[in-house]
């Protein structure tokens, strides 16, 4: 293996950095959009066909753009936001715009799984729309939301591999530039093993948390 352990460690750090910051902002964006998609739909607590009619297609558009295209297509926007269009931090902007809408669909699904009777009971108690979301929908969907975030995190790790296209670095970038382009099979193997370990760990933690919060004897 031609890659020094320093490069590898640095790549691990870059991946963790992109995934954690990307997930943080992506989750905020995703939860907001996901909740809007649920509560503004027909028959729900804040039914509003205009808001739903705007948010829904926007989410679809972002979901349908391949990440590698998104990465370069929004370069001007990225520059506006973080001052540069290359580097690890710059890669986070497209990562958030990629994973946010994805998380919003997962959140939407999780919240829609909550029995309509729960919302009805909340309304009968005189809960405000905010209380319905905060005290009924999210707690009831919580185990399912954990699994959603787990799935999104793993998707995000996949996406960071492409961040190399804008100089984002990370494990994927090491595998391509050192492993693939220089025919160093060992580097590819090591980076792939590292990614597999990452994914396994995250899925395991997600499952454990989900079980902890799902109160089934």
């Amino acid at each position: 293996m031609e890659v020094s352990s320093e490069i590898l460690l640095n790549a691990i750090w870059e991946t963790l950095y992109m995934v954690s910051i990307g997930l943080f902002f992506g989750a905020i964006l995703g939860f907001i959009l996901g909740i809007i998609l649920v509560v503004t739909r027909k028959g729900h607590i804040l039914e509003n066909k205009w808001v739903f009619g705007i948010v829904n297609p926007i989410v679809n558009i972002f979901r349908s753009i391949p990440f590698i295209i998104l990465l370069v297509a929004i370069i001007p926007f990225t520059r506006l936001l973080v001052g540069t269009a290359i580097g690890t931090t710059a890669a986070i902007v497209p990562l958030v715009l990629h994973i946010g809408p994805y998380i919003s669909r997962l959140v939407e699904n999780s919240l829609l799984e909550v029995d309509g009777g729960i919302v009805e009971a909340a309304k009968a108690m005189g809960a405000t729309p905010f209380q319905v979301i905060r005290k009924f929908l999210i707690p009831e969907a919580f185990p399912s939301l954990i699994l959603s975030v787990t799935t999104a995190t793993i998707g995000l790790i996949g996406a960071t591999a492409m961040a190399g296209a804008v100089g984002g670095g990370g494990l994927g970038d090491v595998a391509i530039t050192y492993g693939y382009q220089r025919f160093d099979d060992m580097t590819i193997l090591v980076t792939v093993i590292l990614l597999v370990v990452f994914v396994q760990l995250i899925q395991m933690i997600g499952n454990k948390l989900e079980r902890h919060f799902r109160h089934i004897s």
Partner: protein
Amino acid sequence: MIEFIETTKDYHIHNQVIRALDHVNLKINKGDIFGVIGFSGAGKSTLIRTVNLLEVPTEGKVLVDGKDLTQLSKKELRKEKKKIGMIFQHFNLLQSKTVFDNVAMPLSLAGVKKEEIKSRVNEVLEFVGLEEKTNVYINQLSGGQKQRVGIARALITNPKILLCDEATSALDPQTTKSILNLLKRVNIEYGITILIITHEMGVIHEICNRVAVMEKGRIVETGSVLDIFSDPKTQTTKNFVQSVVRDEIPDSIFEQLEQANPNERIFKLKFIGVDVGQPVVSEVAKKFNVDISVLFGNITELQQVPFGNLIIEMIGDSAETDKAVQYIKNRNVQIEEVIADGSEFRDPSKRDLGNLIYG
């Protein structure tokens, strides 16, 4: 306490208008346990939901304690909703929370202090008999226990009205009975007016004092439970009553009638109230020259008033039998002769319908 005035509700589904409530007029008095019975699709679910505005009427209005809730501001409406508790067929409890947190929810939404919530929750949990389950998650409870939690949650805000939406339909008969007893206690001990919707006449029979029968979005019959059971007017009501009080004439009796004999006549007697205690039958046998055999009989209680049916055969001279019948009539017992044909119960199609309805 609750008054429906020309309450109408239309749904628009695929450009079609479906009328779920059709100019309903109904008054529920303070302290009533009022039952609304109907088959599924009769509109009773919609009706109960207009009381706390889970459904907003298209036309007409609903007055709760004299107030039209649709006229209130959002804040006032939330305050009024605290006075209306509701329990559901499928309980609608939060799986993610313990019994305590579920029951405490209406108070914590209102921002009541923790200490006060705690004492109130303990009080209502004791009332419903679940004080030992305080910190248990909902999944670990049986259906009956879940409904008790539902009742505790509804009572926690000290409501004036309790709405019960098919509250016992998902429970077995034994559990149903215990929940109905609990609701009776809610009515008596807290003086809460209860509105129950159900498709089970047994529920009405067990605890209601007044009843309305719904069909196709309309109220087809309403009155005291005793009146409705003793003298149902519409076929729907008759079918419901027969699901509890079996007064149809058994087939074997019709077989007897086939071999008609003018000296053997069959009568159906209906006793309401004190008359049940009267030894009418034996008196008749002594006073008149007729032999009487009892072919079929049952007795039940409605609002502590006994209510019974008896089918007897009188054997003897026809003129003497007529006298006996007159005597029974004078004792305020309803009596009618069962004739071989012309009885609605003989119509096989109707009997099939009956079987279908009673399951």
